[in-house]
């Protein structure tokens, strides 16, 4: 954006950028440094040698995958419906959904919890998957609807003229065109469900079913936290999301760029 005519300008801007980034990196450095204090890499060895650790990763992955699938199904169908189909009073429904965005988590838990125990879902992965997914849908629908609004109606009409029914239009026209927003929603939902801490803590009791976010708690003592290993496990838990973001960064930005929050 900045026009760079001279090398000196470039150097100055590069320096400016670097200086501005320092505060963002500093805590990360402190975190990694802290995770290497005391026993050094031994902290990581301890974290990685937790016998149940692979299971935690598997559970987190299952939960994340299921949440992504559920959210995407709800989001893509709803955004298609809201944006391209005739629904009487649909703005009312849309705002009803958006109002949920303003819901503080505080308000949600009691009834969600009641439902979980009532349905006998306690101690199953569903008890985490369903509430986590339900909480994300309002925001992802908002994102995706704005994106779908940007798809010209003519494309849909053309397909209809060709004799395609709604299902086919959704499958063959909508979905291919919405790939960027699918990717953006996917990354977003992945971050949220991977970091989900409270629902696994409350609803999954047996160690075989717990998730990676509960790993640091293994090193939190009654009196004293084993800070170095808490940080080491934070790094171990955070790494997959950072990597996922790095690889999907392009799609993520494109998805947001192509219509979200215009």
């Amino acid at each position, binding site marked *: *954006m*900045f*026009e*760079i005519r001279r090398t000196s300008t470039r150097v100055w*801007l*590069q320096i*400016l950028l670097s200086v501005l*980034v320092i505060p*963002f990196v*500093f*805590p990360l450095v*402190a*975190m990694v440094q802290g995770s290497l204090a005391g026993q050094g890499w031994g902290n990581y060895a301890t974290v990685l040698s937790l016998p149940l650790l692979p299971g935690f990763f598997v559970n987190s992955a299952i939960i994340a995958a299921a949440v992504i699938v559920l959210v995407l*199904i*709800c989001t893509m*169908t*709803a955004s298609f419906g*809201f944006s*391209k*189909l*005739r*629904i009487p009073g*649909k*703005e009312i*429904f849309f*705002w009803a*959904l958006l109002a*949920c965005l*303003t819901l*503080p988590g*505080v*308000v*949600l*838990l*009691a*009834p*969600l919890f009641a*439902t979980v125990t009532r349905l006998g879902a306690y101690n199953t992965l569903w008890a985490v998957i369903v509430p986590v997914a*339900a909480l994300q849908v*309002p925001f992802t629908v908002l994102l995706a609807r704005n994106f779908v*609004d940007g798809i010209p*109606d003519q494309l849909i*009409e053309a397909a209809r003229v060709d004799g395609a029914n*709604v299902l086919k239009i959704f499958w063959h026209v909508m979905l291919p065109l919405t790939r960027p927003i699918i990717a953006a929603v996917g990354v977003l939902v992945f971050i949220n469900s991977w*970091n989900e801490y409270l629902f696994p803590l409350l609803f999954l009791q047996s160690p075989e079913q717990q998730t990676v976010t509960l790993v*640091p708690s293994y090193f939190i003592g009654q009196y004293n936290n084993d800070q170095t290993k*808490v*940080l080491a496990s*934070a790094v171990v*838990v955070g790494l997959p999301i*950072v990597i996922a*973001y*790095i690889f999907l960064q392009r799609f993520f*930005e494109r998805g*947001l*760029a*192509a219509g*979200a*929050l*215009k």
Partner: protein
Amino acid sequence: MTARTPGSTGRRLKSPPGWPWILPALIFSVGTLYYCIGYTGYISTLDWDGTSPLQQSVGVENFVHLFHDPIFWRSIIHTVIFAVSTFVMQVVLGLVFACLLHSKLYLRTFYKVLIFIPVVLATATVAPVFRQIFAADGVLNDILQAVGLDSLARPWMANGAFALIIVIMVHVWQSTGVTFVLYYAAVGQVDPETIEAARIDGAGNLRIIGSIIWPSVRGTTIAIAILTAIGSLKTFDIPFLVTGGGPSYATEFLGTLIYRVSVSYAQVGYGAAISIVLLVLAIVAAIIINTGGRRGERADV
């Protein structure tokens, strides 16, 4: 946050009913979430410790009590300070990063990733790091002493004003990545020819940001304002984990107040009343910003 008038093309009327398409989302989210609101609303009229079988209905007494609670008003003030300052800092930083990273600089992806990493890390995992940085014998004071600014070193967390600043800074650290990505996308959509034309007219970089880019990304700015307002009202994890709401309630927010009241004091009814007020405030804030922003947009045209 756009709400469009339905049926911009008459031909859509012929379409088959669309409601089956939105049903999954509605049942899934709205159903569950509205049930929650109703339930909390009911509890807010009770005097109840959360476990005893005795539930005494007290009508609006919890709400009356709330409006006479000085800590509640302090929480509101903190929320406003927090909302305004985090909004300004995130917008400025987000936009500056977006513009810098659209320029032809080296290692752009690298910088982007660094700015975004804080977003993906859970607060619970980074809170101890910040406590350590700002501790009396922490990294920040070490640095100040190393560069000869000993007089500035102090127990940061012990001072109410600094504690609030720390909470704000941690939030900005954690969420600038999001505003940056949104602005980065928005700036990318600004018509390059407009910028080129301005340049030919002799406009400098800052002038272009002020008079071309800033107006073009207005929609994004409004969206960020709404998300900031709602997010500020919901603020809980950073004050809870970094400062514990203290010292002496200096970083108390509605979320931490609800926690203190309903978990520590077991005044569940009162906690529910605060939750309801919070919910109303969040919706009102969203509507005000949205309509205000739209009016501004129209005035521009």
